């Protein structure tokens, strides 16, 4: 089966962000960028499906500026067979990303689309669900396990989902959309020879226009602020002092 994996270029999760002085957005100049952690998990899952002989081809796709080809190369180094770059310099909201991905789905006709559950910049947690709706597919969000055969019928995928109360398992008709949660797998690192080989793998470019999608959105970002900083408190010397403070100062006991 063919697997499409969507990856997003975001700020590295270890970087402490700064808000621009004019409050228009977060300042990304000279900041270390990386593949969104949940997308790394998505790529890893696709690669494992290929290693198990279930997936036959992995196509990685991203929407973003020229620089996001870096993340496609990473996906290729990790095991994707080819990549598609939907190039745009605009700010693209989740709905528009979902429409662009639907355009790619229509062209590529994958059996399975894997996305991260959330991008750690916008923290939206929307794109996979939206893509599933637009493509008329079922969705297995927040997946901690995917399986084929195991208790489900031919032409279905079994997805275990992390939900507030515990775990839920569903069967989805293929083609389907899966979004990854943290415990689906532990992504590998790319090896140097694979990074070299990735440079030769095919990378095609598309434009939103060619896919017939306008990226304009009904949402506008008016302002970005730093939240009220929490001040550190004091260190106490003993359990007795802690209990005393909680009772008599903070009055929470």
């Amino acid at each position, binding site marked *: 089966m063919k697997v499409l994996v969507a990856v997003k270029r975001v700020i590295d999760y270890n970087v402490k962000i700064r808000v621009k002085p004019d409050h228009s957005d977060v300042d990304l100049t000279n900041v270390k960028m990386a593949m969104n952690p949940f997308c790394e998990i998505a790529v890893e899952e696709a690669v494992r499906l290929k290693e198990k002989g279930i997936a036959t081809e992995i196509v990685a796709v991203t929407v973003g500026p020229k620089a996001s080809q870096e993340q496609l190369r990473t996906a290729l180094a990790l095991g994707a067979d080819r990549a598609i770059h939907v190039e745009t310099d605009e700010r693209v909201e989740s709905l528009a990303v979902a429409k662009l991905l639907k355009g790619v789905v229509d062209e590529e006709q994958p059996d399975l689309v894997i996305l991260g559950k959330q991008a750690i910049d916008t923290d939206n947690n929307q794109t996979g669900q939206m893509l599933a709706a637009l493509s008329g597919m079922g969705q297995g969000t927040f997946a901690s396990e995917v399986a084929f055969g195991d208790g489900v019928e031919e032409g279905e995928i079994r997805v275990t989902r992390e939900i507030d109360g515990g775990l839920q398992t569903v069967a989805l008709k293929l083609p389907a959309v899966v979004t990854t949660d943290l415990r689906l797998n532990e992504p590998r690192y790319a090896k140097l020879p694979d990074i070299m080989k990735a440079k030769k793998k095919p990378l095609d470019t598309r434009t939103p226009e060619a896919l017939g999608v306008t990226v304009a959105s009904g949402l506008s970002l008016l302002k970005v602020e730093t939240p009220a900083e929490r001040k550190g408190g004091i260190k106490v010397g003993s359990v007795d002092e802690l209990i005393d403070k909680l009772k008599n100062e903070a009055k*929470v006991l």
Partner: protein
Amino acid sequence: MSILVLAEYHDGQLAAGTAHVVGAAQAIGGDIDILVAGDNVAGVAEAAARLDGVSRVRVADAPVYAHQLAEPLADLLAQLADDYSHVLAAASTDGKNVLPRVAALKDVSQISEILSVESADTFKRPIYAGNAIATVQSSDPLKVITVRTTAFEPVADGGAASVEALDIVASSTLSRFIGEELAQNERPELGGARVVISGGRGMGNGDNFKLLDGIADKLGAAIGASRAAVDAGFVPNDMQVGQTGKIVAPDLYIAVGISGAIQHLAGMKDSKVIVAINKDDEAPIFQVADYGLVGDLFEILPELEQKL
């Protein structure tokens, strides 16, 4: 303006979060309806009808809605949405699963996890794990929104809304429910507890989480965990607090053996009082803790339990 709130319930009980979402709907202003979708949900509908400020409870009672599967539920919500200016749900795993699907079906954006209502079309929401707060405005005819429940006061009981049955039965050929493994827990719900005590990698193993039990019993606390503790298999996933787990804002949060990574802080830094217990006096958690106690948790926890 008219607002549709999707009710959430577990085990036939209306979830506490729904009253907070109605609180957010009141901040927007307008007529408020609640949708209860499920199989045999008359009891939930009755509880929803008692929430203050609700005009009407609409009930879609059919087996297809039994497990809140996103595909049929989104179809139902999309059919109802034309009557409303706003559709709201809690930013719970159910809300996050279904609302983006509704938004896409209606060709509008979705606004995730709002913290405040600035006006009927302008909202604040956290981005970058809560390290920045964005103010966003929507010009869409329909606003589809998930609500961070800890950021809004719940409405009280005391209303008497009308209850109306809907006969829309969505089809569900795309997905089917196979099973569920729900954590059995006598303790208060993490999202709503007045006190939360969480353990991290420093707890060492799952057995040691028992050290938190006695303290939680005495304080009526919910028990949470860091991602490291969940990944290591000490405790189940539904206990994870943080950017990608549960968001809590109790009166008292006690972090035990947790270093204080930004992804963990994202889930608890709006707590009123934070206590950190950690043997490393440089641990970043101390930068946000009101009261820090440096030491070995294996000595401190038994003493704390005994002296409380």
